[in-house]
């Protein structure tokens, strides 16, 4: 059976029928909870402006984990990944232009 499926290309087979194991999903949940604890802990210090950046970096890491494993993007076809990257880039352009404007506004 496995030989027959390997003929179609192992990679393709993996993409089409990947089922996340409970163990993997629990590990993902655990890492998300740990990162939440780090977020809360880091907020008990005053790093000045760095605080919001630390929070955003951790939040980005957490959302990457959610998107890749819970939302299964890692095991989707490339077109899903290209679409996702495009959407994020549009959002990034949108945000960076606003900040470009803001940087010169309140002076």
């Amino acid at each position: 059976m496995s030989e027959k499926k390997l003929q179609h290309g192992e990679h393709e087979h993996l993409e089409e029928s990947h089922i996340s194991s409970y163990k993997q999903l629990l590990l993902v949940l655990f890492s998300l909870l740990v990162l939440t604890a780090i977020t809360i802990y880091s907020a008990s210090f005053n790093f000045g402006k760095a605080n919001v950046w630390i929070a955003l970096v951790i939040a980005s890491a957490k959302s990457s984990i959610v998107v890749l494993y819970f939302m299964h993007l890692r095991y989707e076809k490339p077109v899903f990944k290209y679409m996702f990257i495009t959407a994020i880039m549009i959002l990034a352009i949108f945000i960076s232009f606003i900040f470009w404007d803001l940087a010169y506004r309140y002076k």
Partner: protein
Amino acid sequence: MISEQHEHHLPYDPEGSRLGMWLFLFSELLLFGGLFILYASYLTKYTADFVIAGKELSRTIGAINTIILLVSSYFVAASITAIRRNAPRIAMLYVGSAITLGLVFLINKYFEWGHKFHLGIYPRGPALEDRTNGEVIFYGLYYCVTGLHGLHVIIGGTLLAFALYYIYRKKITAERFVFLENAGLYWHLVDLIWIFVFPLFYLVV
């Protein structure tokens, strides 16, 4: 691979369905992205006021709600594993648990908002009259973002309730489970947005 069930006239295309769901989620991302841009631009202008107002939000409830959403996201992801392993009862248990946690989240939110309303902290509320502009803006954004997010929790919970019913009626099976996948994608988006809402509103230092 032609479906033998004649009740389904449309070809079953799970990949196309998921692609459509992702496209919709991107528009949601831009919707919330706009609100986060507002937050970021006002934060640069009224940093001190945001810190004062943000400290009034309960970190404990915020943290509890974060954990609730993360665990419920796990339940939804696990329900897909269960249905694909042909265990519909376990899948129903997982989806049911996720819906329950969603309800607990909303109940927490109700008490949180209720307490703030009681103190007169709401848009044009008496307690905000003599506060600074920055604090008024912070609470305006807080109600907009958490309100819109709460609406998404209600919609996501409803979708999951439909998924639960469809598993029960055997319309979602080990072979046909894209509805559960798409409802799950929506639920994860709700979680994703909260991942940013929590530190930005509850943990401003």
